[in-house]
């Protein structure tokens, strides 16, 4: 088993996770135009939701996953309802929204740590099956990650381009005032966007939890990777975000192969900063 196939596989798996996170983030950003950092805590809520329902309460796996994703979505909805919507009414600047989202993120992350301790936990029950693809090893969970990433990308693209509701979301993103004038209930649309994005983030958190594990601080790192992917790909552009995610996954994995594992985050941010300097609009312009 050579190192190269495994590196490629790892890059793709990381890319699929970042894809999901970048998609949710892009959806929020392109609709309400601010960096919603509270989105990061949704991954931890998803992961801990499953931990609580499946490992502590003892529900069956499928139901726990679904409920955990819905829980993350609900928290996203509530954050919008209680914080962002009043701020939007007041025409608060994007900086105010950013700082508020930072506050929500910080507070909820600490609440999770209080409820479940800040220890690293694992979700998976024992050794899973390991498959061999193109000469590298891949676990069952990682196959699910790949499938989910692909599925969410396709579903979201279909939803945004082909359904009335999806087009309404795009309209709100283009110009909220005009969208309201033509009779779109913009508050309802934006609420839904927050729900949907948070649910996607929750799913990503659940999958990361089964793949590696959960800790209350997992969200920030994942969020930042998703944001980097979104910016590298061209913010607000679905396919750009996907490409950015895979580029990030590849650069990270080959980077840690060449340098060393501890520098993974620094490598990711170096990629971001190189892009911001030389190509701030990202790979694809919106």
């Amino acid at each position, binding site marked *: 088993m050579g190192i190269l196939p495994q590196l490629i596989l790892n890059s793709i798996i990381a890319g699929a996770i970042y894809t999901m996170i970048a998609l949710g983030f892009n959806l929020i950003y392109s609709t309400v135009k*601010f*960096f919603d950092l509270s989105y990061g805590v949704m991954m931890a809520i998803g992961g801990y939701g499953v931990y609580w329902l499946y490992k502590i309460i003892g529900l069956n796996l499928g139901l726990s996953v679904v409920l955990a994703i819905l829980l993350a979505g609900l928290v996203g909805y509530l954050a919008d309802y209680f*914080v962002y919507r*009043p*701020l939007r009414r007041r025409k*608060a*600047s*994007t*900086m*105010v*929204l*950013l*700082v*508020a989202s*930072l*506050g*929500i*993120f*910080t*507070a*909820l*992350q*600490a*609440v999770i*740590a*209080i409820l479940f*301790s*800040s220890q690293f936990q694992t979700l998976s029950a024992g050794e899973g099956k390991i498959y061999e693809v193109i000469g590298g090893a891949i676990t069952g969970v990682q196959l699910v990650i790949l499938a989910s990433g692909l599925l969410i990308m396709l579903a979201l693209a279909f939803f945004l381009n082909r359904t009335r509701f999806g087009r309404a979301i795009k309209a709100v993103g283009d110009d909220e005032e005009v969208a309201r004038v033509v009779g779109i209930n913009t508050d309802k649309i934006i609420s839904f966007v927050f729900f949907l994005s948070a649910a996607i983030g929750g799913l990503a958190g659940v999958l990361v939890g089964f793949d590696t594990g959960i800790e209350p601080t997992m969200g*920030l790192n994942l969020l*930042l990777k998703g*944001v980097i992917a979104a*910016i590298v790909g061209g913010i607000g552009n679905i396919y750009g975000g996907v490409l950015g995610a895979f580029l990030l996954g590849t650069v990270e994995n080959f980077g840690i192969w060449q340098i*060393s594992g*501890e*520098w993974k*985050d*620094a490598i990711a*941010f*170096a990629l*971001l*900063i190189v892009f*911001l*300097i030389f190509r*701030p609009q990202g790979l694809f312009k919106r």
Partner: protein
Amino acid sequence: MPYLIHLAILVGIYGILGLSLNLVVGYTGLLSVTHAAFYGLGAYATAILLTSTGLNFFVALLLGVLITSVLALLIGLVLSRFHGDYYALGSFGFNIIIYSVFLNWQSLTRGPLGIPGIRRPEIFGLNLTDNFHFLLLVLAILLLVYFLCRFIVNSSFGRALRAIREDEQALQVFGYRTTFYKLIIFVLSAALAAVAGSLFASYITFVDPSSFVLFESIFILAIIILGGLANLRGSLLGALFLILLPELLRFVGFPSDIAAQMRQVVYGLILVILMLYRPQGLVGEYKL
């Protein structure tokens, strides 16, 4: 009483951090979330110089400030290309990169083990191992920093900074090289953060990377937003408030692990509530 002195020293150090960050965020309107990195650079530079050489504390402090300023200049050059959200995100990135350096450049920083045994400063043969004497030093430097900041913001340079915050393009039309202004204030702010870092390192006599994580930058940001942007006294007020508030939680009787998390919950809620009801903070003169 020793406990109160300890808190007063912390308030002093965070006061310096708040004042210096306010120059960038409050007066110039650049949302920088990388202040803990410069704070850490100052702390590590001092720690390494004091433990590996026989240098005087104040020489080590100045060298730390110098090193931090050079790095801040480079980082500021990159950041000067960004605006708004992107600026915030880019500065996030630098905080994480510098934290990674603290954590991973093991031959220099000893990584997660940290650097113990940092000496306390000595002035005219008087060793400041006594916390009360150290507090006097911190207060003296805090006062110096306060008046320096006040001098800056009241000068014509300070007015130009506020003008950049309100309308950068208009100022460019008048022939001001705004990038230059933004760079100078960024480097100056970083240098003052390094001073705070030096004090912190020699006070605690130990540094490790965990003191300079991204959350620390957020905490300093919370101090100045709570106290009020573009108001120097506000920064001191914010530091006082946010250092003392969690100490009250300790008296409520939470176990220490939970108390640490409760602090974060409180800081987070403060940010949210301020944004909702009072975005200018307690005595601020500028809204984000």
